[in-house]
C-alpha cells in the first residue's frame, strides 16, 4: 500500500514532465503542411470560380465590359491597399513574436483585425449602393438586362461574397491568435498556430489580388 502510494507520488511529476516538457508532441512542419493542404482546396474552390468567370467573359466580352463600368474602382483600389497592408501587418506580427516582442506582435495583430473590419465596412457600403441601384441577383432591374450582364453581377456577388466570408473567418482566427498570445499559449518558442493563421490570411489577400483587376479594372 505504502509502496504503491509512493510510486504514484514519484510517478506523477514524471508524467507531468512528459506532458509539458520537451517530450510533448509537437510537429510544426506537420501543422504547416496541413494548412497548406487546406489552402490547396481553397485554391480549387476559387480556381473553379475564376474558370467560370473566364469562360463567361470570353463568351460575353461586351456585356462584361459595360457591366464592370458600374463597379466602384475607388473602393476596389482602397480595399486592395487595405488587404495588402493587413498582409504586411500579420507578417510583421509573426516576426515580432519570433524576436520575442509580444506587445508589438499583439499590436500588429490588432491592426490586422482592424484592417479586416475596415475592408468589410467598405464592402458593406459598396454592396448597399449597388443594391440601392437595384443591382442584385434576381432583381427586376438586373433580370431585364442581357445574359452577359446578369452573369457578370452574379459572379461578382458570389465571388466577392465568398471572399468576404473568408475575411470574416480570418477575423475570427486572428482574434483567437491574439487571445492566445495574450494568454501565453502562443509564445516566441511555439508560434506555429500564429504562423499558419498568417498563411490563411495571405491566401485571402492573394485571392483579392486576382478579384480586383478582373472585376474592377475592366475598362
Amino acid at each position, binding site marked *: 500500500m505504502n509502496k504503491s502510494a509512493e510510486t504514484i507520488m514519484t510517478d506523477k511529476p514524471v508524467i507531468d514532465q512528459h506532458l509539458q516538457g520537451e517530450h510533448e508532441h509537437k510537429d510544426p*512542419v506537420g501543422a504547416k*503542411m496541413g494548412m497548406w493542404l487546406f489552402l490547396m482546396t481553397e485554391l480549387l474552390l476559387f480556381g473553379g470560380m475564376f474558370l467560370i468567370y473566364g469562360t463567361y467573359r470570353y463568351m460575353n466580352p461586351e456585356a462584361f465590359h459595360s457591366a464592370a463600368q458600374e463597379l466602384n*474602382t475607388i473602393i476596389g483600389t482602397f480595399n486592395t491597399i487595405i488587404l495588402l497592408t493587413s498582409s504586411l501587418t500579420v507578417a510583421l506580427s509573426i*516576426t515580432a513574436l519570433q524576436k520575442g516582442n509580444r506587445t508589438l506582435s499583439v499590436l500588429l495583430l490588432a491592426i490586422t483585425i482592424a484592417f479586416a473590419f475596415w475592408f468589410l465596412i467598405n464592402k458593406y457600403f459598396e454592396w448597399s449602393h449597388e443594391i440601392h441601384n437595384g443591382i442584385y441577383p434576381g432583381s427586376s432591374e438586373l433580370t431585364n438586362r442581357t445574359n452577359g450582364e446578369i452573369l457578370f453581377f452574379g459572379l461578382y456577388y458570389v465571388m466577392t461574397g465568398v471572399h468576404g466570408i473568408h475575411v470574416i473567418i480570418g477575423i475570427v482566427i486572428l482574434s483567437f491568435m491574439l487571445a492566445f498570445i495574450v494568454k501565453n499559449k502562443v509564445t516566441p518558442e511555439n508560434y506555429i498556430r500564429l504562423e499558419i493563421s498568417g498563411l490563411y490570411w495571405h491566401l485571402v489577400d492573394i485571392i483579392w*489580388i486576382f478579384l480586383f483587376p478582373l472585376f474592377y*479594372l475592366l475598362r
Partner: protein
Amino acid sequence: MQQNNESHKPHIVGYATYIFVWLSLLALTAVTVTVAGINFGGITLLIAIVIAIVKSSLVLNIFMHIKFDDVVFKVFVGIAVLTLTAVFVFTFFDYLSR
C-alpha cells in the same frame, strides 16, 4: 530537409524585407490601376493578369515564406499551381477552338 526538428532553426524574415515587399505590392497596384485607365486594347487583360501573378508570387514567396521553406512545400505549391494552370489551359483550348 533536416531530420531533427529540434535543430531546425526557424528562418526569421526581418521587418525591412516585409516592408520592402509591401511597398513593391503597392507600386504594382498603382501600375495596374494606371494601366487599366489607358486603353491598350486586347493586351490590357494580359497586363492585369501578369501583374496579379507577380504580386501573388511576392506574397507567396516572402509573406508566406515559401522561398525559405523546405523543398516539400515548394513542391506542394508547384503542383497546385501547375494543376490549376492545366485546368485553365485545357478549358480554353476547348472554348477558343469552338
